[in-house]
């Protein structure tokens, strides 16, 4: 297991987007996702696309990382595009392919929907690309804080998330160790029919679960020994603070939203 193992797709960097408060980023993305569905003109799409592309440009993240994030959804984008071309029958017939008439309305619809998808994925992947998982956890805890009033276990949820994040590499190392140990006893994970390979996973999962439970028990004891008594009366080392950059981006984004609604057809 190499030492550069990264959880999630975070790409370290020093851009303004990296330094933004994760809460501001989540808020912007939340509203972006909603507003994208209101866009219906060239100008409104243009405003959103400009905002998204500008954000991506500022991060200075190499395009290949972004392309990697978009990889699983390319198919979906192209599929919806073609579906719209075939199904929508509005406007004039532009040309025909293999007996199918392609209408102008269909082309516009197809492009619009695909663009919508593209922007959604682009902006949401920007969050995970520029924010560490632990910062996202902090932001979620902070955003959900008001729910404490209705007895929602916000602190516990955040702690669960951060402990899971902390143990992912540990359990991955363990999985590797167990799979090597089982392979040395003759378990074959790589060849044979699917059914056999699925069966081979059992001797991998059982010891992994046993050890995970043992870890959990020991961790709970260690936490208690270090005075953990739940969220009450705890202070926090990691602090979130909205700074000038966050307010500036929030204001800019508000203008984008206004622009979208003004330029709707």
């Amino acid at each position, binding site marked *: *297991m190499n*030492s550069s*193992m990264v959880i999630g797709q975070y790409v370290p960097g020093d851009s303004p987007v990296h330094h933004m408060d994760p809460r501001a980023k989540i808020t912007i993305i939340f509203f972006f996702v909603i507003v994208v569905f209101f866009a219906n003109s060239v100008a409104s799409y243009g405003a959103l696309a400009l905002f998204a592309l500008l954000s991506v440009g500022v991060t200075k993240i190499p395009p290949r990382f972004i392309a990697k994030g978009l990889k699983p959804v390319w198919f979906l984008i192209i599929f919806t595009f073609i579906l719209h071309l075939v199904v929508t029958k509005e406007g004039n017939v532009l040309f025909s392919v293999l007996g199918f008439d392609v209408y102008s309305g269909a082309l516009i619809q197809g492009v619009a929907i695909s663009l919508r998808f593209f922007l959604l994925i682009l902006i949401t992947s920007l969050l995970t690309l520029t924010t560490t998982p*632990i910062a996202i956890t902090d932001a979620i805890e902070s955003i959900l804080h008001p729910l404490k009033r209705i007895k929602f276990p916000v602190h516990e949820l955040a702690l669960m998330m*951060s*402990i899971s*994040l*902390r143990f992912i*590499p*540990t359990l991955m*190392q363990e999985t590797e160790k167990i799979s090597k140990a089982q392979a040395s006893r003759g378990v074959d994970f790589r060849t044979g029919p699917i059914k056999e390979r699925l069966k081979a996973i059992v001797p991998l999962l059982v010891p992994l679960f046993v050890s995970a439970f*043992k*870890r959990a028990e*020991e*961790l709970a*004891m*260690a*936490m*208690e*020994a*270090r*005075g*953990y*008594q739940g969220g009450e*009366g*705890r*202070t*926090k*080392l*990691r*602090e979130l603070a909205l700074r000038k950059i966050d307010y500036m981006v929030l204001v800019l984004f508000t203008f984008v939203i206004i622009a979208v609604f003004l330029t709707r057809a």
Partner: protein
Amino acid sequence: MEQSFLEFQNVSFQYREDSPVVLDDVSIQVNQNEWVAVIGHNGSGKSTMAKLMNGLLFPNEGHVYVDGLKLSDENIWEIRRKVGMVFQNPDNQFVGTTVKDDVAFGLENHGIPREEMIKRIAHSLKAVGMEEYEDHEPHRLSGGQKQRVAIASVLAVAPSMIILDEATAMLDPKGRKEIMHTVNQVRQERDVSVVTITHDLNEVTLADRVIVMNKGNVWFEGTPRELFEQKGDLQSIGLDIPLVSKFAHELKELGLNVNKQPLNHEELMDELWTLHSTM
């Protein structure tokens, strides 16, 4: 007069009513700033003893006093603040996602203000020589380094006593050395009692006092030097004495007059080269 910090009064313990007695009428004490090593082979009750010291377990009979407080449900958190504990498995006590966060965990639990926290984290990481690893994730650290972070986490809360419950058992020899060195260092810099639980006799030589547990009873109590003088008996309860002591015993049997029971190579050397001098 040395003051006792922790005291067991006739403590007995068993995990369940029908299970065997783990500790049987044990009375011991640990003084302020004293280093006590507790040894014994598996099942001798030594780890149970550690867990009784900070309220992870409660005695069935007898009483545990920590700094004048009788261990009870009400003062358990106060006691855990005074008695820090480092466990055996380096991975399963690392709560934070980075070294800094892990040291902060105990401080956060005790509601220490953030500014104070930052100071204490820097200070305690420095005490264990891990200040350069502040932002490292646990999977990028060796076992010994993780245990040093665990010690730093305990130190940050400024306890009066630190228990190391087989904290070196899962480490390689280099890691063990690191930990023993760190503990020794900390003891010289701060006022703190140390209890090390171990089954490795090589680790008791630095302690002020040794308690040997056998089958739930205190089998021996005294200085490391006194302990190593009883060679045969130790082996009879399944403990192996260090090579230096063995060597000294053999020399004695050969009729050489080794007076002082040597604890390490230097002492043995001194004994040997002054053997015939009559100063």
